[in-house]
C-alpha cells in the first residue's frame, strides 16, 4: 500500500470507528453503570486518536465525535465538540512533543482526558447557568467516572490501535524500533559518515 493511500484510509477508519463507538456508547453503555456511573468512551477515543495519529486528526476527530453525541442525545450543541477538540489536540501534542512509550501511558492519558472532559463539562454548564446539582454527588460522579474510564482505557486503547493500524501516519512500534536502532548506533546516519 502506498503512503498516500495509507493517509487516505485514515479519515475513513477514524470516521467508522467514531460512529461505531458513539452507537455503542448511546446504545449499550448509557444503560450500564459501573460503581454508579456510566463508562464514557468518547473522551478516550478522542484522546487515543490524538495519541496515535497526531494533534490535527485528534482535534478533528474530537470535534466530530462531540458533534455526533450532542446531535444524537439532543444536548446543548458545541459543548462536547469544544471539549473533545481540546482533548484530542492535547493528546496529539503530547505525542508530537514527548512521544511517551510507557505501558501505562494510555491509562494516564485516558484518565486525564476523562477528567478534562467531565470537569470542563461541569464548568461550561455552570457558566451557562444550567440548574444542575452542585455537590459532593457531582464530585463523586466525576471522580468515579475518571476511575472507571482509567480501568477501561488500556483495553480500549488496544482496540483503537488495532482498528487504526496500517493507516496511521507512523506506526509507533516501527518508530520505537528505529529509535532503539539509533541509540545502539547501528543505523544512525552519523555512524555511516
Amino acid at each position, binding site marked *: 500500500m502506498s503512503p498516500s493511500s495509507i493517509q487516505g484510509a485514515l479519515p475513513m477508519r477514524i470516521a467508522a470507528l467514531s460512529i461505531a463507538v458513539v*452507537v*455503542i*456508547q*448511546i*446504545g*449499550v*453503555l*448509557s*444503560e*450500564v*453503570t*459501573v460503581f454508579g*456511573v*456510566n463508562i*464514557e468512551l468518547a473522551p478516550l477515543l478522542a484522546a487515543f486518536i490524538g495519541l496515535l495519529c497526531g*494533534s*490535527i486528526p485528534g*482535534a*478533528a476527530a*474530537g*470535534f466530530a465525535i*462531540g*458533534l455526533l453525541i*450532542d*446531535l*444524537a*442525545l*439532543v*444536548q*446543548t*450543541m*458545541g*459543548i462536547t*465538540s*469544544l471539549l473533545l*477538540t*481540546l482533548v484530542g*489536540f492535547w493528546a496529539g501534542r503530547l505525542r508530537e512533543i514527548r512521544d511517551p512509550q510507557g505501558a501505562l501511558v494510555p491509562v494516564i492519558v485516558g484518565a486525564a482526558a476523562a477528567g478534562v472532559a467531565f470537569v470542563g*463539562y461541569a464548568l*461550561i*454548564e455552570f457558566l*451557562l447557568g*444550567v*440548574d*444542575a*446539582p*452542585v*455537590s*459532593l*454527588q*457531582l464530585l463523586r*460522579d466525576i471522580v468515579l*467516572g475518571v476511575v472507571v474510564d482509567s480501568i477501561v482505557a488500556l483495553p480500549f486503547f488496544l482496540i483503537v490501535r488495532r482498528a487504526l493500524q496500517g493507516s496511521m501516519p507512523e506506526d509507533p512500534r516501527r518508530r520505537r524500533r528505529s529509535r532503539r536502532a539509533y541509540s545502539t548506533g547501528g543505523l544512525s546516519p552519523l555512524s555511516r559518515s
Partner: protein
Amino acid sequence: MYGKTVRRRRMVLALLVVLSIILLTAYFGESSSGGLHSVQRGFMTVVSPIQDGANAVLKPVRSAVGWFGGMLKAKDEANKLRSELAQLRKSVVAERSDRKTLEEGRQIAEVDSHTQLAGYRRVAAEVLVASASIWYETIDIDKGSSEGIAVNDPVINGEGLVGKVTAVAPEAAQVSLITDSAVKVSARVAGSRQAGILQPKVGNPSDLLLQYLSGKSKAAENDLVETSGTVESPYESIFPAGIPIGTVTSIESESSYAVNVRPAVELHGLDHVQVLTGGPASRSSLAAGLASLPSVGGSEGSAPETGVAQVEGG
C-alpha cells in the same frame, strides 16, 4: 516547512474551537424552534430507525452486561427489600383498623384518577436511548408527532410517573425524566389536598424533594406521593391528577414543609413507557363546560388547593 506545519496546526485548532463556540452560543441563544434545534430534530428523525435497529441488535449485549451488574447489586437489593418488607408489615398491621376508611379513600382516588386520565389517549412506546450524561436525565422513545405526541405530554408506565416529552420528531421523541433538574411537578401527598412542587433534590438527582407544602399537610414516611393536577387556567397542570410518583422516605424539614420522595418508577433501565396525549385540550374543554353550567356553582370546588404558582416545565 516546520513553521508551515505549526501555522496549519494552530489554524485547525482555532477553527474548530471557534466553530464550537459559535455552535454553543447560537444554540443557547435561540428558541426551541430555532435552526440548530431543527437540525437536531432532523438528525433524530434520520437516526431513529438506525437507533431502533441498533437497540434491537445490542439488546442481548446490554442484557448480559446488565445481568452481571444486577448480580453485584443483588445482595444489597435483597437486604433493602427485606427491611422494606418488615416496615410494610408493620404499617399494614397499624393501619388495619382504618382499612375501611382507607379503602373508601382509595376508591375515590381511583375514580378521580380515571376521570382525569379519561381525556387522554395512551401511546405505548419503546425506549431507544437513555442519556449517558449525568447532566441530562432523558430518554428517547420510538414514537413521535406522527402518533399525536406533542411537547409537554406526560409520560407514565405501570409504576407511575416517568416524565414529560421535551422534544418531538415525526418518529421519535425525547422525554425528560422526573429526575431531570429541568422538570418540576405539581404534587401532593395522597389523601391530602395540599399541593407542593416536586423536583430533583440538589446534590442527589435520584432523590426527589416535595416542597412548599402548607402546614396542613401531614406527611409521614411511606406515604404515597401523587400528581396533584389542576384544571384552572392559567395554572393548568400538564400532569393529570392521581398518577403515583413515589413514596415519602423522610421529612426534610418540619419548618419548611418539605419531604424527600423516592420515585416509584425504576427510571434507569426503562424499556417501555406510555405517553398521554391530547389531555390538556380535553381538560380545558371540560373545565369550560363545567363553568358554563349554572347549576354547578363554579369549578373551584373540584380543583385542589394548590396555593402555589404553576411552575411545571423547564
